[in-house]
């Protein structure tokens, strides 16, 4: 029963992959969405009927003396609740994708839906897999599917570059992750998650092991320093971005840390590293997002920032709050991306620059509403979902470490500023278009409505979620009292952007001129991308070229050429002094001897019968002589 969650996307992937061309693109999209929805329903039933943690083993792989790599699914509260969220958001995005990809139907679009199913299947494998090996399998599957999807427009150079970058960056993380898995096996002697949780106890190497595992999460979730692929992944179609950022790929890193929290919590060093990474990435991404002008990249940086907040919560020891933020974030981030995709569709895929848009409110009212709800939820404005989940983190951390909480609040201020800035620039004001923008069709707006509702109301599930996870949470009244800073910060951020971009209190262009160096610094992501591309990659190339010239051409080639020359001289010497003078003569002599000897031997083979018989007679003579001699003796 539970395995059906995994089975539906897999079957959908196989069906579409094999018969997609036959059944058509639209049918492929429907199958894909149907598989997602069925998977969601099964997950929901499983969640409601679940009694306790359950480990369902399908197959015992590699049975060794006292351990084996089990292939199965492990269902507990954490995994099944995340599965429900993921399958739900994915299903909504799948439905939306049918509408979004409409303009590409007929161009092998079924591939796109097949990749989607593979993506969901891999993600579910991460969520439900009962061993680290299976988790790693899904981890790689997600990487593969994201590579295929980001590079879906593979005829365009930037898309292939972006997909390659995502793959390489993930590979660095995966390399760390698999080393972490190996080291964990070394430490605990098992990879099965239930056994790992049972045996979790402090051992000396655990800091290194968890740090290596966290390295995988850094790669997958786009944290510093492996973050550059995340904004560039916007090269893919918008549903891909939504899926990547809301439910599947980037959530995998956070989920993995939360999943292995019994092990991570054993090492305070690792937790502090996670916190530091989270805080740095959070501020970094928020600052960068304030200056970008691509409708999707701003949201991408906000994802980075929000994930960093989750990591901070994990590092500070609040996995439940982090997972709840992951859930609500999945809702409103998917909503934001879907709305952004709707904007792009409404503008006929002409531009993604927010300053070339404007005044879309009157053309696309539903999209405007959806985007505003998502933006307010992301800002943490009450009573939207983001408010509850973010302030649950902030108020928890506040008691423990005021500095970190303050930094989160600063990031929230920036978040509120940049996301409403985007909303105001795109939807308010005035815009001029060659082609009339249009509202999107119901197949796209309906998913946005569902997600809007959840972004609006999902936050009230906070207390249900915490009691479901058996985690303590303060009462509603004191929670609101504690969250006063969060509300203030959200209002300040929203007002700031309102004043700047709607009321034009200060002309943004003057500010731009004033803070140009800072703007450039932020826009280039603090030169990290520049460093990666130009210093690390090109430096590597330059060093390679230098080594090629210095070592390869001069030393190795020179050595090889020198050997060849010496060898030629030697060969000439051998040829002149040994080959011609001795070997040839000896061979010639042998040939002559053989011929003459053969000529002599030919006489024996005369063919004359009497001569043969005569030889026989001679033999008889010899035998008789021997007999007589023997008798004499």
């Amino acid at each position, binding site marked *: 029963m539970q395995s059906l969650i995994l089975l539906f996307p897999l079957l959908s992937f196989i069906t579409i992959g094999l018969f997609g061309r036959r059944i058509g693109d639209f049918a492929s999209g429907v199958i894909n969405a149907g598989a997602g929805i069925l998977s969601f329903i099964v997950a929901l039933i499983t969640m409601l009927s679940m009694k306790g943690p359950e480990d369902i083993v399908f197959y015992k792989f590699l049975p060794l003396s006292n351990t084996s790599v089990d292939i199965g699914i492990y269902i507990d509260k954490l995994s099944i609740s995340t599965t429900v969220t993921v399958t739900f958001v994915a299903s909504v995005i799948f439905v939306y994708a049918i509408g979004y990809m409409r303009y590409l139907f007929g161009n092998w679009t079924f591939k796109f839906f097949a990749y989607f199913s593979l993506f969901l299947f891999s993600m579910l494998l991460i969520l439900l897999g009962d061993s680290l090996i299976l988790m790693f399998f899904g981890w790689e599957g997600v990487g593969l599917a994201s590579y295929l999807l980001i590079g879906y427009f593979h005829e365009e150079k930037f898309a292939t570059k972006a997909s390659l970058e995502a793959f390489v960056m993930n590979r660095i993380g995966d390399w760390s992750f698999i080393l972490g898995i190996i080291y964990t096996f070394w430490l605990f002697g098992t990879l099965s998650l239930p056994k790992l949780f049972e045996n979790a106890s402090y051992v000396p190497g655990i800091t290194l092991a968890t740090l290596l595992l966290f390295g995988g999460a850094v790669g997958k979730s786009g944290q510093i320093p492996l973050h550059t692929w995340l904004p560039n992944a916007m090269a893919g179609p918008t549903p891909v971005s939504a899926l990547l950022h809301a439910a599947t790929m980037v959530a995998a890193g956070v989920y993995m840390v939360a999943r292995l929290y019994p092990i991570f919590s054993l090492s305070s060093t690792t937790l502090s590293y996670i916190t530091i990474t989270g805080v740095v990435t959070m501020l970094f991404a928020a600052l960068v997002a304030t200056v970008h002008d691509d409708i999707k990249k701003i949201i991408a940086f906000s994802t980075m920032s929000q994930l960093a907040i989750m990591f901070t919560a994990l590092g500070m020891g609040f996995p439940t709050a982090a997972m709840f933020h992951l859930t609500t974030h999945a809702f409103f981030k998917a909503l934001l991306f879907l709305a952004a995709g709707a904007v792009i569709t409404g503008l006929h895929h002409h531009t993604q620059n927010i300053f070339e848009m404007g005044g879309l409110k009157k053309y696309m009212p539903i999209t405007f509403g959806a985007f505003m709800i998502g933006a307010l939820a992301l800002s943490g404005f009450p009573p939207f979902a983001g408010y509850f989940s973010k302030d649950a983190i902030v108020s928890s951390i506040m008691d423990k470490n005021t500095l970190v909480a303050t930094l989160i609040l600063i990031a929230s201020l920036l978040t509120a500023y940049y996301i409403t800035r985007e909303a105001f620039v795109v939807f308010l004001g005035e815009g001029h278009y060659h082609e009339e923008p249009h509202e999107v069709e119901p197949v796209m707006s309906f998913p946005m409505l569902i997600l809007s509702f959840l972004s609006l109301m999902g936050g009230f599930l906070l207390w249900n979620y915490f009691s479901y996870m058996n985690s303590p949470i303060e009462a509603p009244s004191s929670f609101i009292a504690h969250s006063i800073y969060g509300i203030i910060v959200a209002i300040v951020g929203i007002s700031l952007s309102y004043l700047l971009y709607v009321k034009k209190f200060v002309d943004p262009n003057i500010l731009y001129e004033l803070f140009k160096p800072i703007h450039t610094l932020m826009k280039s992501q603090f030169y990290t991308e520049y460093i990666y591309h130009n210093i690390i990659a090109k430096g590597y190339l330059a060093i390679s070229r230098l080594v090629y010239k210095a070592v390869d051409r001069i030393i190795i080639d020179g050595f090889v050429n020198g050997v060849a020359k010496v060898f030629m001289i030697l060969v000439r010497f051998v040829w002149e002094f040994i080959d011609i003078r001795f070997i040839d003569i000896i061979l010639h002599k042998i040939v002559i001897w053989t011929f003459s000897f053969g000529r002599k031997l030919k006489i024996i083979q005369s*063919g004359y019968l009497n001569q043969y018989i005569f030889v026989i007679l001679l033999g008889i003579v010899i035998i008789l002589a021997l007999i007589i001699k023997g008798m004499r003796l």
Partner: protein
Amino acid sequence: MDKYYLLLGIVLVFIGIFGIIIRKNLITMLVATEIMLNGVNISLVSVSHFLGKVDAQVMSIIVLTVAASEVAIGLGLVVSIFRLKGYEASEEITELRD
């Protein structure tokens, strides 16, 4: 007395060998072979007489049979060689092929 018959057989075998060596004519060579066979037969029969058993005479009968076959094949060969190549002396037949 039997050992003299044995000696007679041996001497006849050697006469046959001598005949094969010195003669050119193929038919005469075949006759020399027959002489050798008969020499063997005499030896066998003398041994049979000497031991008082008839087993050796069975061998003789088989030798007779083989001699008959040999003559049939040998003469057939001689005739075909003569017909195909037109000569009949052993010195001309030094190669198996044409």
